[in-house]
């Protein structure tokens, strides 16, 4: 008998594989990636690909200084890389976010449900993410945590509270 249990922490299904070096590990990683991409396109339809294109286009259009006519910094390549990695590892049941360019060159991903339910993550390309949110019932959170490529339980719980 196999039971389904609630996650106790990080969702390791989507965790980046360990640093395998053999041809077998590389083929397995590619196989897994293709299956995960199929899962995401099934869950989100064309919205997944549209979001990727939107993110790349947004970064391209803001790749020079002063893109907002107010002295904004160009979108950092490492910030784009982090945001793409985060999206690649986003579980399929999490709604897709809106993409927001930030004047310091960071990339923001935002989830909005209501004036008192919204959550934002900012990727600056430094290996950490800044987050802030209104989770309803007057609860506010903000902070910084290391970014390891996947959703931390705290971030996932925060997004769940905003989007559900």
């Amino acid at each position, binding site marked *: 008998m196999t039971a389904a*249990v609630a996650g*106790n*922490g*990080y*969702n*390791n*299904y989507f*965790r980046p*594989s*360990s*640093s*395998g*070096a*053999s041809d*077998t*590990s590389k*083929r*397995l990683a590619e*196989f*897994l990636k293709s*299956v995960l991409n199929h899962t995401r396109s099934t869950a989100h339809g064309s919205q997944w690909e549209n979001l990727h*294109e939107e*993110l*790349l*286009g*947004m*970064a*391209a*259009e803001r*790749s020079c200084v002063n893109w907002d006519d107010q002295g904004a910094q160009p979108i950092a*390549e490492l910030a*784009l*890389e982090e945001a793409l990695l985060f999206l690649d590892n986003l579980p399929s049941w999490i709604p897709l976010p809106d993409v927001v360019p930030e004047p310091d060159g960071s990339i923001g991903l935002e989830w909005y449900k209501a004036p008192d339910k919204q959550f934002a993550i900012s990727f600056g390309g430094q*290996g950490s993410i800044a987050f802030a949110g209104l989770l309803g019932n007057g609860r506010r959170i903000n902070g910084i945590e*290391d970014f*390891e490529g996947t959703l931390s339980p705290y971030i996932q719980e925060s997004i769940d509270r905003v989007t559900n």
Partner: protein
Amino acid sequence: MPKVIPLSQAPIREALIEIRVDRRPDLAVDTLEAAHDRLKEQFPQKRAMQRQEFGVSLKEGKGQVSNVGASKYGFRFDSPDGKRIAQFQLDVFTLNWLAPYESWDKLYTLARRAWNIYLEVAAPVEVTQIGVRFINSLMLPKPVTDLEQYLTCPPRVPQKLPQGVKSFLSRVVVHDTTLGADCIITQAMEGADPKLDTIPIVLDIDTTLRCRIDPHDDFWEIIGKLRHLKNSAFFESVTDTTLEMYK
């Protein structure tokens, strides 16, 4: 405890021990290169690990990713035959042992020695994750009329559908509450080459423990426990028929 028996021809394609860390803020990737002086007797080959950097350009109103260069994120040091690899990254240490696998003791000893060098050179702030992963390739002799003859929990197809499976991928994550570790069990069959007499099935067992440990503490007992968890997962995943093939 599951039956754990020595396999003289274990189907291991790769075994690895991995330790993830919080790096010290001022660690530069080129600092890791200095480790080669201490490792070159067993790992004479040195290579920078590079990540492709990309720029984004607009073409016909759409963003396109194009390669503009590469940036280093670590170094790998290989044995003369390329079968043992020490990967020194900014926030990850890995010791890979590719086939032919020899023994747990040899893997453990080599990994521990290489880790001690990583610890001195990289001086990480904290250990955040420990992992033991064994990737097996089971070569099942054709014809394979019933996967349950070889795997205790193969994927199943509803009875009224065709029972011939061309490929599959199964990945389950179980949590060992005693150890506080996760065990990812992946079974995969990409496809069988009609010209070969065997069908390859990958059985990948990846055990990990998230933690917050002082890197100078002796946490290697934990690695031993992850190995036992890995063994349990492997021996419970295969049948006696499979084990007979590799004794």
